[in-house]
């Protein structure tokens, strides 16, 4: 579903590459944690999947397509297959919860009737039934992240990318969010989550890919945050 083949990404200016000859292969339906300290290259890897930037060398495949060779006008189509969740939620403050979720469908041209049907069911899935008319700042952080997840998932993407989704949340709320991401993963959606939240990684016992200085230093099928190999 997502494959990095000897990917190197160098940003302009002096310094080491953000990603250095990285190869990762993620199968359809997998749940993968991308861990590592700040600056280890996690966010760069996610940006490459979204085609927000292109690798300096090597290839990135998403859903069978080599994204760095994708024509510019095809990029939106790629992104419709990928849901994205961020640490800072990125909700529109002047729109209600329902409108925030519906927005993702409106702007890709879905019909009103389809939106009216799918938005409430998605809100129910993320545990926000009855809160569709609230504004984001009337919700707790965890609830806001649920709205963001609903927005990312409402179009039923094949891949869900989460960049530090629990970074702003307390452990109990984080656990709820992780449960939700787990449920989404069970529907067959591939989840790639960058994090340095030790607790959630240890709890989930999913595949862990660790990056350090732009290189893959560990790739374990059922790992914890810290190295299990002592």
């Amino acid at each position: 579903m997502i494959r990095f083949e000897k990917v190197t990404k160098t940003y302009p200016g002096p310094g080491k590459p953000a990603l250095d000859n990285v190869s990762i292969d993620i199968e359809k339906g997998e749940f993968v944690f991308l861990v590592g300290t700040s600056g280890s290259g996690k966010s760069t890897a996610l940006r490459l999947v979204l085609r927000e930037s292109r690798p300096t060398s090597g290839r990135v495949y998403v859903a069978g397509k080599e994204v760095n060779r994708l024509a510019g006008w095809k990029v939106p189509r790629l992104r419709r297959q990928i849901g994205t969740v961020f640490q800072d939620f990125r909700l529109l403050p002047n729109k209600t919860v329902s409108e925030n979720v519906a927005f993702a469908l409106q702007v890709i041209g879905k019909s009103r009737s389809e939106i009216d049907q799918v938005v409430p069911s998605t809100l129910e899935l993320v545990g926000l039934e009855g809160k569709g008319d609230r504004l984001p700042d009337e919700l707790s952080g965890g609830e806001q992240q649920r709205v963001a997840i609903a927005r990312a998932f409402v179009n039923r993407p094949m891949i869900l990318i989460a960049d530090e989704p629990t970074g702003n949340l307390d452990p109990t709320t984080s656990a709820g969010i992780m449960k939700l991401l787990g449920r989404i993963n069970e529907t067959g959606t591939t989840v790639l989550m960058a994090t340095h939240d030790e607790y959630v990684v240890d709890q989930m016992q999913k595949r862990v890919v660790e990056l350090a200085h732009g290189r893959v230093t560990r790739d374990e099928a059922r790992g914890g945050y810290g190295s299990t190999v002592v």
Partner: protein
Amino acid sequence: MQLRHSFTELRQGLRRNVSMHIAVVLTLFVSLTLVGLGAMLNQQAVKAADQWGSELQITVYLCRDGDDNPACLSEVTDPQKQQIATVVEDSPEVAGSYTETKAQAFEKVKELFGPERFEGPDAALTADDMAESVWITLEDPDEYEGIVSALKGLPGVARIQDLRDVVGPILSSIDALKYGAIGTAAFLVLAALLLVANTIRLAALARRKEIGIMRLVGASTLYIALPFLMEALVTAFLGVALAAGALAAFLKFGIIDRAAQGLTFMPWIGWEDYYVTLIGIGILGPVLTLLPTLLLTRKYIKV
């Protein structure tokens, strides 16, 4: 494509940035009016030059039957015409020349005074009453004495008209007005372009969060740019409409009701020239707003 969102955005965008939009509309209005004015003055200059020749020209009227000039014994003959043509061709002062036939002269008169008076059995004039003429363009407007004296007194020449003294000042003042209008318009067009660019910058900034989300969820570039393009079109439309009104007022109250009444010897521009100008500014206005919008939206909302 669902355009509901685009129209909502358009409405919000116009309201959010209303002072900037008014500035754009007013600048466009004035610059398009000046461009239109320049174009209409140009048409006026062309019309005047068609009638009288440009300021470099002198006109040699040939004898016609029953000419006022006693030197004209009869209608100009072909050998006489031949001789005149040779003199004109051989003169170093002449850059070029052409002959205007009786029929062409008649057409001009009809155009100037309206065709009604020249048709039917009791027409004021017929083509036969008109004189054939040779229109000479000079190499240098100040060197004309040689050719004038060579032609003067030649058999078949009724009179030589050097309208440059009369037409020159009129044409040069039309020209001055034209270039003044176009020159001022050029500055204002630049101002309009910059204003549009600033408006887009502000609007993109105000909407950066939404634009970011739209990009992430896979909205097409066109869809993201659409509200901006529609805003550009709305301001262009308003600017063009105001300019069209101002130019129509100029034509009606300045030319048709005033100048054309007072100075009837001159052919004046009319509504058909106005429509041509209108097409011009109708294209220029949207181009002026869409061009910076397209360039800047590419920059600000790149996927």
